[in-house]
């Protein structure tokens, strides 16, 4: 099925094992049916999109407000760590659809506020929203992915706290 082709491109290790198990029962013909993306692929891909958008927003704010770099760099670095660990949950075959990158989504980022206090508030709101969005699939994610999402969500809640404090003092 051609419409399944894109879904085949991103597989988790868990999903990749399934056709082998099926093949053991039904013979080689079972390999003809591509596996559907496992739920955790959707969850991890959504989380990657959330992180990617946050990183793009940080980059846009840093471009408009370079003086905020000392305050924002540590937080941005932690988002890169989040993204790295989420990417580790996905196996993307060569030639497949690339996952979104911060550069690719940067042009879609809305105009960022010009004053430091407003920019910090803008990022605080983005962190709050991301923290909530990461928990949207908490109930359906596999246990270890659920723990990773809860941890990253908590990290982003602390980012919002630090940004809110910085905004009040700027």
């Amino acid at each position, binding site marked *: 099925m051609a419409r399944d082709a894109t879904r085949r491109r991103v597989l988790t290790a868990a999903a990749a094992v399934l056709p082998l198990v099926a093949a053991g029962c039904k013979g080689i013909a079972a390999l003809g049916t591509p596996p559907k993306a496992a739920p955790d692929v959707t969850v991890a891909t959504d989380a990657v999109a959330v992180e990617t958008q946050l990183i793009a927003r940080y980059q846009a704010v840093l471009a408009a407000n370079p003086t905020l770099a000392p305050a924002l760099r540590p937080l941005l670095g932690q988002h890169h760590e989040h993204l790295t660990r989420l990417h580790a949950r996905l196996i993307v075959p060569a030639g497949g659809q690339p996952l979104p990158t911060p550069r690719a989504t940067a042009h879609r980022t809305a105009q960022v506020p010009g004053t430091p206090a407003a920019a910090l508030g803008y990022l605080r709101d983005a962190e709050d929203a991301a923290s909530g969005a990461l928990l949207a699939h908490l109930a359906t994610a596999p246990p270890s992915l*659920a723990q990773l999402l809860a*941890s990253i969500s908590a990290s982003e809640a602390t980012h919002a706290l630090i940004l809110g404090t910085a905004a009040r003092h700027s």
Partner: protein
Amino acid sequence: MTAAGPAAVAALQQALAAENSAVYGYGVAGAHLTGARRAAAVRNWVGHQNARDTLTAMLAARGAQPVAAAAVYQLPFGVHNAGAAVALVTLLEDRLGAAYLGLVGLGDPALRAFGARAVRAAALHAATWRRSTLAFPGLDVPAPRAPEPASQGTGSPAPSGQAHGNPTPSHPG
């Protein structure tokens, strides 16, 4: 669900044990803090007592005997001044996050959501004390570390055993 019960009870007991430690530790730390930091410590101390009671009730509802608090806990380093007190409560919050993350690994969606809220609360407390953030609260917990001697307050003689990087148990009582 035959396996969910014991796993849930074990994870709840872990969280309760961490709350018991936190109630004890905040009691020790609060004595070395003043002003706004003391007020925050008292607020969190009460919050952890409430969390302890909640977990106790959740375990009782599952027919389990809640793990009892110890009379005295061995602290990871000597707590004789405000700097060490802040380091201690930061560590306690980090460990609470790790304990509650165990609930997020269960199959029960309600316990997952409960655990995620508690991981968030512990991370927020830890970040407030630490004045910085972690990338993976609950997952990557920093090792216990006594504060640098230079950051200690005045008028509070450090005991000889309090070399940083070499945590010592506190004197009970």
